[in-house]
């Protein structure tokens, strides 16, 4: 039973990789194979940050602008001929965001860029067929890193690689071991991919599973016709495939837990919220709540951004809050009363004239007292 399982699985994996190779060959039928390109750290110049060579690499420290750009000249006639783009860093903070930009000399092709949708890591493999506008000549290539002042990344090299089965496997492994922290949509679905992923993991694993089941069927026909199907074998094959996907998921969970621990461990609720993704908004709302001197006051939340409005209203509870998802920022005038508070959380179509003490929109002007002001929003009270 174990032998049949193992053999079916190994052959199925081999067949899947061979199939991917054939698929690539069919797609790249007319593509000429060109030599791989490696841009070492010394090929790059630095803009918007301070850079220095370190052990053959390029160390870049972000300045006040919080953005560092490294650019290198490149001589590529047809970018699509390179199947993989690999960024190698000796060191890069996880919290920075990385974008790529490329252009050709005047007129030959338009400049283009892509924001990498996953956390930065030391080795990033990208399948270029998933990068929009990655085609045609490229004369300049750049990496844009955005973070906080003082963040430092150390670039080793950038590689433009041709296709091979081994590189395909490395690309898949690299993609599957990517990590992206929780998003708002995480509660609704887990796609398992980013925008630049080469394959949906489930689809790839199902290919292996189906092939392994077929191969086991062949095994039964050839060697075990008398005994028939041992249903434990398909069960094991299925379990192994499930395990594979689950190990990837477990890895992501562990990375997330590490980040969560760094962000929230040993903090009170108030400290957690001040350290979390809504830190600035929470600080503003906390101050606004403290400034509301009546516990039973009505508080209207006005914002044109649904998330901001939602979180503002939540943090305001247990005040008597009014906020409508995808509705007008304020209700009809007849429902507003003197003494009502309005939290204007940016972005908002409501404007405040501090000198005139007015809150106004396209339709109305309301006399208000400014109770609390911050870069994130303003708390006013209707006169």
């Amino acid at each position: 039973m174990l032998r049949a399982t193992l053999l079916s699985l190994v052959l199925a994996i081999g067949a899947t990789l061979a199939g991917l190779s054939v698929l690539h060959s069919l797609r790249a039928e007319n593509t000429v194979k060109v030599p791989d390109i490696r841009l070492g750290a010394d090929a790059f110049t630095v803009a918007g940050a301070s850079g220095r060579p370190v052990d053959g690499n390029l160390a870049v420290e972000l300045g006040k602008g919080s953005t560092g750009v490294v650019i290198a000249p490149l001589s590529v006639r047809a970018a699509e001929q390179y199947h993989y783009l690999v960024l190698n860093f000796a060191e890069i903070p996880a919290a920075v965001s990385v974008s790529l930009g490329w252009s050709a000399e005047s007129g030959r092709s338009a400049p283009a860029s892509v924001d990498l949708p996953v956390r930065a890591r030391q080795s990033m493999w990208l399948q270029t067929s998933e990068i929009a506008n990655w085609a045609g000549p490229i004369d300049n290539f750049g990496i844009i890193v955005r973070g906080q002042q003082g963040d430092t990344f150390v670039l080793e090299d950038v590689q433009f690689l041709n296709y091979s089965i081994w590189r395909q496997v490395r690309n898949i492994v690299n993609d599957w071991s990517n990590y992206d922290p929780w998003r708002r949509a995480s509660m609704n679905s887990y796609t398992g991919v980013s925008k630049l992923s080469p394959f949906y993991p489930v689809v790839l694993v199902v290919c292996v599973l189906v092939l392994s089941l077929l191969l086991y069927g062949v095994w039964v026909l050839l060697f075990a016709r008398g005994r028939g199907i041992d249903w434990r074998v398909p069960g094991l094959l299925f379990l192994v495939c499930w395990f594979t996907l689950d190990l990837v998921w477990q890895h992501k969970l562990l990375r997330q837990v590490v980040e969560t621990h760094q962000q929230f461990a040993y903090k009170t609720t108030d400290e957690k919220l001040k350290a979390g993704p809504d830190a600035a908004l929470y600080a503003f709302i906390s101050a606004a709540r403290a400034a509301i001197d009546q516990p039973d006051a009505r508080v209207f939340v006005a914002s044109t951004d649904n998330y901001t409005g939602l979180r503002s209203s939540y943090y305001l509870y247990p005040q008597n809050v009014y906020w409508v998802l995808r509705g007008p920022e304020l209700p009809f005038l007849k429902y507003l009363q003197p003494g009502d508070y309005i939290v204007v959380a940016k972005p908002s179509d409501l404007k405040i004239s501090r000198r005139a003490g007015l809150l106004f929109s396209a339709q109305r002007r309301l006399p208000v007292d400014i109770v609390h002001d911050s870069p994130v929003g303003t708390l006013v009270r209707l006169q």
Partner: protein
Amino acid sequence: MTALLIILALLLPALMGSAWTHALLPRRVIARPFMVLGTGTLLGLLVLPQIMRLWDALGWGLAILPTLLTCLGLTLLALAPGLRRGVSAAHPYPTPTAPMGHAERLLLALLLAMIALRLVTLATEVSLRPLFPWDATMHWATKARVWFEHQAMVPFVDHNSWLERSGSGVYTDRHPHYPATIPLLQVWMTLVLGQWNESAMNMPWLLCFMALGAIFYGQARLAGASTTLAVAFTYLLLSLPLLNTHVALAGYADMFLGAAFGCAVMCLHNWARLREPWLAVLALAFALLCPLIKNEGLIWALTLIPALAVALMQRREAAKFFVLLVLLGLLAVLVAPKDLAIVGHTIRDFRPSFNQEALLGIVYSIFQHSSWHLLGYLILMLVPLGLVMPGALTRKLLILTTVVACAAAAYFFLFVFTGFGAGAENFAAVGRLAIHLAPAGMFLAMLIYQELLARQRAGGILQEP
């Protein structure tokens, strides 16, 4: 001190529920500890909020003491020496078969290790993270926050009513009439802690997850699965990524509803086989609790009725009953006022119109995304095999198949034929509602696979053992 209070707050409903399941279950039940603790914990978590509601309705508000004393009283009552224990089995329960080989032990150890690792990971995440998800801060924890502050269930009304009443004595959020069970669980945790704590109040989600695993294992063993098979499928259930996400980012009601409905389905299946009253009691209890968790719970609970009909009637009579039910349902929809609200939506909202994009959304969600690993493919492969095996789905597993089929039909109808298809097109709701059905679907998959193995041992899948 906080950790101790959290444990005490979780222990009380778990103890109360477990005391009653201990009283209810016969002494000789396979995997009894898992059944008692798992079912009891889930029961306790869902009944505790109802006790809080009762005291609030009686004018005592949401104080700790009445709830605490009631729970303790109920626990002691269940443990009273004079209370009749569960009826002894009239026939022997399924017993383990062959001893385990070395490879099987290794597999079992691996599965248990993966389950343990998952539990530890999720426990760490949920205990550290403050409230995060969208709906939790829009209409679940909003009530919890206000009720905790006022120590009473202050009424929530819709936005227009709030404006008309100038907010006097009422609050508002996006879904003011959603069931109170989940917010009250959060209130309970914060009442015991004495402060609003956005991480601690989510610990019931971890407990529910653990209870679900214990229930599934216990019910699987009761259904005749070997230890390894039961553990394997428990692992498959507990490793579902979207289910894990709902534990890690706690605050939604979907996992609780999935656990309650799943438990009702499993109990109903095993009751139909064994005809033990305690299983019927549990199935009924969890079916009645479903609508108290989320509005859709009523729909899922109603899907148990056709299965009950199949269990109690001859197949021909049951088929006639089905047809009658469907005709009555259609008549009700045609005759009832279009503004009549059912499970929070008007009849007008359910007007059928085929939505191809929604169907594609369901397909992508189940078969392309990683939300369910390979669960969709597991069911896709096993159901046809179940049909090939004579009597498997049509006799032995008929009740379970009926429930799952009715629930799946309701699920598809909701997204593919009504205005709620947008929830499938943008994946906003299709995954979350699938959580409600996942435990029941996994149980069916396990039983079909078990049947395959049993028939293989008996000489072939085309032979009924």
